[in-house]
């Protein structure tokens, strides 16, 4: 029983990380109908920037804030400098660019920071809270951060003019132009937000998986699985999918399959969802065309 609870809470914590990254993926998908293969590497790179700031003595939460801002700007830059120029090109060209970004961020991190594994601090205390031993402080904290993030995003999209404009652009770009919304600005905003969310996911993941240039590829796969499972165009679905995948991964890993096939598990979810119900649990998109 104790083991079960341990796994569930650990699953919720990693699930929060998957949910955050899945949210970033869904945000970009909603705005552009594109899957950002480079999301994981961008998040990893941002986490390295955070690490560098911490090394120079900047306190954790200041680093957190600066990293989020930096990532936002990075996302905006990518949209304006790269993606805006290739809008309308066929899917293959876009995939090439995304893979190019993936590879560049991975190699930049390796080049600048080397491939040796680094320790990344957690802002939460080392001892488990309230003297219990089902969930560590970091797991609880990371879950809380994820939930706060989701709440903030929800409020942003629901109550602000900018959030409304972004939703409009995602649904109907032509009508959006007719009310004067500058579509490329909204796309840049979307990319910036997605990159910022990714950086938070990275900073929450790094204390658990340790910082190295390849740390996010498995997590990205899980985020894909979560986003597809929840519905690639549904932010709520992405969050639900993330937590579900996190808990399932841990439970299956601990009690059924063992940890050796975790990535294959993600593969099975991805292929399964795409074949059986491409729109996911909460989504409404027709993923396959005629």
């Amino acid at each position: 029983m104790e083991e079960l609870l341990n796994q569930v809470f650990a699953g919720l914590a990693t699930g929060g990380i998957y949910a955050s990254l899945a949210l970033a993926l869904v945000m970009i998908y909603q705005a552009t109908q594109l899957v950002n293969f480079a999301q994981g590497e961008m998040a990893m790179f941002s986490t390295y920037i955070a690490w560098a700031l911490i090394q120079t003595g900047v306190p954790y939460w200041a680093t957190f804030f600066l990293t989020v801002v930096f990532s936002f700007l990075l996302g905006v830059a990518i949209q304006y400098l790269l993606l805006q120029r290739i809008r309308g090109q066929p899917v293959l060209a876009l995939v090439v660019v995304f893979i190019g970004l993936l590879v560049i961020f991975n190699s930049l991190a390796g080049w600048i920071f080397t491939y040796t594994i680094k320790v990344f601090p957690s802002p939460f205390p080392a001892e488990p809270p309230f003297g219990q031993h089902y969930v560590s402080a970091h797991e609880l904290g990371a879950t809380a951060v994820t939930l706060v993030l989701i709440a903030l995003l929800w409020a942003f999209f629901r109550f602000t003019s900018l959030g409304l404009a972004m939703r409009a652009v995602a649904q109907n770009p032509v009508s959006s132009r007719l009310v004067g919304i500058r579509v490329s600005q909204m796309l840049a905003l979307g990319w910036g937000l997605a990159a910022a969310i990714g950086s938070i996911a990275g900073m929450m993941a790094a204390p658990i998986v340790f910082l190295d240039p390849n740390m996010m590829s498995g997590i990205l796969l899980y985020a894909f699985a979560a986003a597809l499972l929840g519905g690639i165009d549904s932010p709520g679905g992405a969050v639900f999918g993330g937590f579900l995948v996190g808990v399932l991964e841990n439970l299956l890993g601990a009690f059924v399959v063992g940890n050796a096939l975790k990535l294959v598990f993600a593969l099975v979810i991805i292929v399964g969802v795409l074949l059986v119900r491409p729109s996911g649990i909460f989504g409404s998109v027709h993923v396959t065309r005629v």
Partner: protein
Amino acid sequence: MRVLHGINFGLAPGSVTALLGANGAGKTTTLRALCALVRSQGQITFDGQRIDRLATEDIVRLGIAHVPDGRGTFTHLTTEENLRLGAYVRHDKGEVAADVERVYGYFPRLKERRRQQAGTLSGGEQQMLALARALMLRPRLLLLDEPSFGLAPLLVQEFFKILGQINRSEGVGVLLVEQNAAIALELADHAYVIETGRIVLAGRTDEIKRNEAVRASYLGC
């Protein structure tokens, strides 16, 4: 693909002008060209300012509101969110709430459905929503593309009555593209008839209505 071959016309401020013609004549394309949704060659002047090289988003900021064919409502957003978007470019945010009420004054049915998803509204209500959203801009010129399309005759009458009210009380100019020539000519001061990308007839509505060719082809009498 070149659709228009030399369109030349002007609008008097605050007037209602109808653009008539059969399907595929180029009426919708003309409206789209005015808002830079399609590329065009030539000059377009609005209130003394050339706008033909501007982007759609900037043309909107000059006070031109386009109600596209198919209505272009944001179907997954609520009625009220659609209206708020209509006022997106305005700087006087304080007035927006008052304008929402004013617009509900013209379209009481929309007020009943303010929190409903726009996609669940009937065709007639969506058309009204599209016009209402355009009004939220406080436009100086309204471009309407086939507003009567797919609407029952009673609804069409109601819609055009309100449109006339708006034109008179707010002084908003209207450029109206319509296949339903009869109802368009009821409202319009001036009319142009387009055939295969060219203007073939122009003048004041009373003249147009008396024109034999128009009566035969478009008014069915």
